[in-house]
């Protein structure tokens, strides 16, 4: 994680952000997929 992101995030936020980045780097997920799913969940739970 870049320093400015690391400094800004809480402990578990770093884990979540870092895990997402790794999954994207490994080609298991794409950023777009995650963004779409976030929007979908937001609509479901609104």
């Amino acid at each position: 994680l870049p320093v400015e992101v690391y400094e800004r995030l809480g402990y578990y936020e770093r884990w979540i952000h870092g895990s997402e980045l790794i999954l994207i780097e490994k080609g298991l997920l794409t950023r777009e997929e995650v963004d779409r799913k976030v929007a979908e969940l937001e609509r479901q739970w609104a």
Partner: protein
Amino acid sequence: MSGNHDGHDHDGDGHAPHPGMHAGGQGSPYALRLRAVAALLIEKGILTQADIDQQLAREEQRTPADGARVVARAWVDPAFKARLLRDPKAACAELAVDASPIPAFVVLENTDQVQNVVVCTLCSCYPRAILGRPPDWYKSLNYRSRVVVEPRAVLREFGTQVPDDVEVRVYDSTADVRYLVLPQRPAGTEHLSEAELARLVLRDHMVGVSNPTAEPALVQA
């Protein structure tokens, strides 16, 4: 993937059928991203909900009581102690304590000359398989940065006075190596049973920031 805890903690309901996937986690947008990532991994068949539930249950089951049993056995059985120092994973397995998730596991013996202390300066590496989840202070920048520079001062803040003639050794955990401190058996405990001894051993003693005493331990924060 310890980040998975986050979703669970919000719910505060251990009986929920899908603790990782509950709605209603307001707050950090990262909580939502975590749920989105988990949902995608399940959709793609990379993970199942059962995998997530199982891992959460495993993490919740582990408590410092497992480590305390190992320490108490080492106090009463010198042959076990020798095996524990030589091959910690195999010795733990004898007591049905599963240390196999730890890549390399080292037990550090406190002596009259040496007080061992464990830290993870980089993040929060900790022998979770033996002690459960680390306390908040273990993950704090304050502890992580100071204990390597002024260990005696930090230990004093835990109420531990290390005599000048006792060497303090600080071990920095990594992704590959986890440490457990084997504290010294307190004087005045000769009459206690192994189970009674185990009750004297607390999490902090096995991290090395304090030491057991002959008095039964109070509940630990």
